[in-house]
């Protein structure tokens, strides 16, 4: 392989403002006439799609019926666009772009299934699988099959690829933290901070491969600012943060989501009216969630709604 792309890439650092040509392609113009002023029309895998102004490429993909893997994106959190599993090819851009956060602009031409896209998605999945325990990140396995990810090819007979190896932190009876499962999606940090809780008990610490989610000086949760709202647990996509009930049942090999019923109710602790989903297995509440599309909570709760049920069982 030659190094021909070096100068292109370095130029890219500040120059890609002009990368995206915003002329509408001729194929899309007929559609454009039928939509309102505040819509933009873009082309995804050859089909033109109209989305409201400000919508992301990812939203446009959904509208076009194109499924896209995501990991660090969630509808109730500000996009951080760090996992890069959702990348797509944008014509005129030297690098791939994250569909979860890149705003659709009139005339963009997007490809979601080119060799480049498949390669990058596959490599991101392999990198994650080769470094952390994804056994409880269910959504990704489907994509790993699609892209033929081989997470084992990084180790050799005499050499193990470095993994994130951390003992499980069990510091209270409410939830556990197992950072050997953490993909650093920043969701918990956002939920604890700006996007919901405003407690800022946890942040990303360290740098590079050694970056970890942590309290200050790795203080235990009971000694930290944590108020046990459980919102971080609710958004964690990997099981790195897990309700203690769920963790204990999994350890005992008794965790059976297929046998669980989910009952919706309204939290009775105060007058806000948060919606709760009680997950019941063997007649016991094993966890409490809140629908992320609910107008009051956006999926976020406080300690009473999230953990108050523990008193139900005495």
């Amino acid at each position, binding site marked *: 392989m030659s190094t021909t792309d070096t100068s292109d890439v370095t130029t890219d*650092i500040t120059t890609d403002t002009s990368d995206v040509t915003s002329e509408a392609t001729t194929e899309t113009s007929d559609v454009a006439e039928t939509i309102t002023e505040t819509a933009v029309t873009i082309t995804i895998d050859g089909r033109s799609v109209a989305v409201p102004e400000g919508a992301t490429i990812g939203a446009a993909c959904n509208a076009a019926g194109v499924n896209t893997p995501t990991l660090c994106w969630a509808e109730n959190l500000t996009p951080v*666009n760090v996992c890069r599993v959702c990348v797509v090819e944008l014509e005129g851009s030297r690098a791939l772009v994250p569909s979860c956060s890149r705003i659709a602009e009139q005339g963009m031409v997007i490809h979601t299934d080119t060799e*480049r896209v498949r390669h*990058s998605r596959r490599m991101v999945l392999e990198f994650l699988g080769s470094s952390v325990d994804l056994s409880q990140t269910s959504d990704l396995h489907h994509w790993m099959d699609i892209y033929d990810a081989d997470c084992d090819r*990084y180790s050799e007979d005499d050499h193990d690829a470095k993994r994130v190896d951390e003992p499980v932190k069990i510091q209270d009876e409410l939830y556990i933290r197992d950072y050997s499962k953490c993909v650093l999606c920043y969701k918990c940090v956002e939920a604890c901070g700006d996007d919901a809780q405003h407690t800022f008990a946890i942040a990303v610490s360290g740098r590079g491969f050694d*970056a970890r989610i942590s309290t*200050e000086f790795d203080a235990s949760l009971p000694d930290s600012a944590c108020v046990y709202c459980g919102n971080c647990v609710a958004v964690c996509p990997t099981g790195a943060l897990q309700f203690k009930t769920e963790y204990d049942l999994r350890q005992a090999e008794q965790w059976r989501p297929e046998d669980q019923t989910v009952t919706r109710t309204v939290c009775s602790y105060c007058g806000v009216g948060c919606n709760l989903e009680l997950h019941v297995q063997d007649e016991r509440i094993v966890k409490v969630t809140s629908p992320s599309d609910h107008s009051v909570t956006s999926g976020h709760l406080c300690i009473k709604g999230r953990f108050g049920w523990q008193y139900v069982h005495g």
Partner: protein
Amino acid sequence: MTDIYLSDERATDPEIAAVNAALSAAGADPADPVVILETDRLYTSGTARRRQRRHFLLPALHALQNTAGWISPGGVNYVAEMLGVPPAEIFGVASFYDLLHTEAPDHLDDVFHVCVDSPCRIEGANDLADRLRAEGKHVHLGPCLGQCERAPALFVQGCGGRPDYVPADSAATGATAKAATGATTAQASDSATTQAPDSASTKASTEQPFLLPQAPNKSLRLLRRIGVVDPCSLDSYIAHGGYTALHRAAEIGAEAVLESVAASGLSGRGGAAFPTGVKWRAVAAESAQPEQSEQPKRSKQSKHVVANCDESEPGTFKDRIVMQHDPFALIESMTIAALSTGATQGWIYIRGEYPLATTRLQNAIKSARAAGLLGTNIADTQHQFDIVVRRGAGAYICGEETALFNSLEGFRGEPRNKPPFPTTHGLFGEPTAINNPETLLNVIDIVNEGADAYRSRGTERSPGTKLFCVSGRIGHAGLYETPFGITLGELIDLAGGVTGSGQLQAVLMGGAAGSFVGPDSLGLPLTLEDTRAAGTTLGSGVVMVFDTSVDMTDVVVRIAEFFRHESCGQCVPCRVGAVRQHETLVQMQHRGRLSPQRRALIDDMAEVMADASICGLGHTAASAVRSALSLGLISQAPISPGLISQASIS
């Protein structure tokens, strides 16, 4: 006092005094009440952040580190109270930087940082470290210190309130030995390399014996005052032609300056070669007034000019020499940038390992302010502009412009996704012109002599002169200035030719983020267009020379280790890819060969890093490695274990 949860630990009196002093020096009143507002790790809440004083975080952390040798829990709590930043976030920021420690040290001694990047490692960095250890010093092995011309380089981080400094003769092979005869020597006032933070003229026992290997000559433009002017004296700067450009800019007006800069064809010297005229024009076009907006956070309060003095690309030291020996030139050119873009706030973000340059710049700002060349009605115009100096704390990634903004604002130095771009959403989310010091310096000539005269040097597509940082196995390592278009071979000859075996093996162009070229490239004209066409880059002007006796496998493994160490960790392709790339090369080094599968794996990894990473670090993390492989520089024979990389990956 605040609604921030604090543990029981309390800061010591010296810690409190140091933080208060740092806050006062940085312009924050320590007695000011703390305002706690939302924070936002994205660009959207710029003004809120500033109100909240978060951008004083890094100065406060430097003060804690310097006092106690670490960022202690009590110190964090005190800073949290002063600035309203939650302790977990302060810890997250502190643990990001190499010069800040979040574990208690077992000593209060100064720390000796020894560079282990290529020019230093081939000139005996490990021996230097051993020698220092034998003297009982606390040694830390780390990346390039920006003194590659005087390899092996050393930087001493003060503790217990003692200042940081760079000893003059760190190396057995001191720069003296290599200095070309007839080279510019420093004047008396240039000799101070040890500096107390607030005394620009402190003379120390340390001397820097020479400045430039090129004898003074007419073709020097950016370097013409180096070693000639007194860097501590505004009068001396003015006597050598200083500030004529600013006055001329004030006379011809912003529009005319913007036109000249665009017509000159000046492009960025920080590595990306973006046209400076386009960048400035974009910032000038942004409104400086608060916009009527439904999102009050997005309202634009002010515009900024930022000098990116982080200079951490291995092999790069040009900005240091300019800032140390001609600091007023940077201040003047930033002021011209402000005048023509309408910016009112200036920031110098300088790497923490440059104590002398920092002091000289602070001194220059003070003098310029006293002379009415900064502040209100600068140079008798209606314009207002002032400059603040902020020190980095050991993180290559903070040279990436958006990471720099986050770092300066008191956040982790993680690059932002682009778009939006700095010209509209830069520092504090406001319109920002960010430039490399070398880029800025060119503007002085452009304004003084006009675009046409400027274009008389260099080539049509690469006008002007270029600073080259020549290091490695070369007769006279140092900083060179020539018009664009000199060939690589001519530059190597100018610098005294290849030493060691005398036979050229390879040249690393552009630093760790650049690529290797072989001896068949000696005829390559050093221009943007020719290097690009040849599949390499000028980058930040690094020309790192390796003779045939150098073990290139070791050099390449170290480059991979550098990226592994410097990845910010934000995005998966780079966070994991840089580790896997390094592991693969270390394995190759142990086995003495690279199987076809492993070779394919390197290409697979390189592609995802270049294609899906957030920033330029990930985009270029594989380019030197791949160029070395395709040039066949990496030995396929087992090598002796003694040569295996000894640098720490902490």
